[in-house]
């Protein structure tokens, strides 16, 4: 028997054929012994399986079985709640640790800058036409600044000024 016909016998058995085709198929099966035997075998399996599913019972206790379901429901509810928050609330969740890390990074950077900066003894700064040299003495808590006017009008005079500045209140200016 052709495969197409076999499948039609099965469809007839399962009531899947339209009425007119089912009637013709039924008549043909009644006449054809091979088709009748196939229909009988398929029908027997169908009938045997109908309402003969093996009853399988859970080995888990009611409490144990439910506990996993409950945990999962609660966990997923938590995820959904966080998804339902407005964008700024969700952003805050990430911004808080980021802000903390940024603050920490700033503090570290400042500490590094402070510890790494050389305790200057002498700084030279040159303005337009003016030269300045600074000297700082930590032990004496004193800063001395020399100012030299290099502007063309003053070159010939070779004027040189010295300013001594004390960290303590009060400023002393020495002119040389």
């Amino acid at each position, binding site marked *: 028997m052709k495969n197409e016909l*076999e*499948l039609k016998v*099965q*469809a007839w058995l*399962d009531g*899947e054929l339209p009425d007119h085709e089912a009637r013709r198929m039924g008549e043909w099966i009644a006449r054809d012994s*091979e088709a009748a*035997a*196939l229909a*009988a*075998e*398929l029908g*027997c*399996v*169908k009938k*045997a*399986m*109908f309402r*003969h*599913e*093996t*009853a*399988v*019972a*859970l*080995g*888990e206790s*009611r*409490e144990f*079985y*439910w*506990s*996993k*379901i*409950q945990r*999962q*429901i609660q966990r*997923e509810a938590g995820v959904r709640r966080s998804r339902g928050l407005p964008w700024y609330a969700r952003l805050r969740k990430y911004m808080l640790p980021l802000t903390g890390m940024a603050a920490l990074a700033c503090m570290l950077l400042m500490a590094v800058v402070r510890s790494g900066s050389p305790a200057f003894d002498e700084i030279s700064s040159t303005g337009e036409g003016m030269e300045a040299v600074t000297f700082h003495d930590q032990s004496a808590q004193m800063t001395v600044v020399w100012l030299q006017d290099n502007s063309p009008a003053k070159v010939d005079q070779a004027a040189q000024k010295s300013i001594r500045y004390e960290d303590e209140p009060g400023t002393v200016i020495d002119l040389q």
Partner: protein
Amino acid sequence: MSTDPDKSAWSETDLVRMAQKGDLTSFEELVARHRDKIYARAYSMMRHEEEALDLSQDAWVKGWQRLAQFQGDSSFVTWMTRIVINLCLDQLRKQKRQRAESIEAMEEDGGVERQMPVDNPNPTAGLERVELRERIDRALAQLSHEHRTVLVLHEFEELEYKEIAARMKCSIGTVMSRLFYARRRMASLLAGLRREGSE
């Protein structure tokens, strides 16, 4: 978790209505009533206790999340059974991608049983009800996932060809072909088991 004696006496409709309002204890009572049926369906498709247990529990979680969609067109347990079947089918698809299916494909294209003449139109004659159930179970275990699934959906869940095709994401022709092969294989296995039993 405590068993609520009042809830055990509640009607299913009331339990579903309360669960839809967010009452987890009502839902827990529904789980207690139908957990065996949902697990059994998962087991009949997966034939693996651990997988069936996990999938049945996942189905209850999904059921809770989609409870608002339950309109009462079918019974609650039928609705839950559809959920667990879909989860099992998804799992079987994942597994199929991970394993070679050459043997099953060959069988589907024309297995030995399919082409055999019918020598015993009644392979289950003379079997007692309990014995028949056991043999059906043993025979089902020997089928491929695809053939077992199509049999389970057609014979146990009583779905039509087109519904099975939609769930299994295949054509109606493939469903008919798989069902035909599965039945012939079952007939052969049941007849073989009967012969073994009589020896």
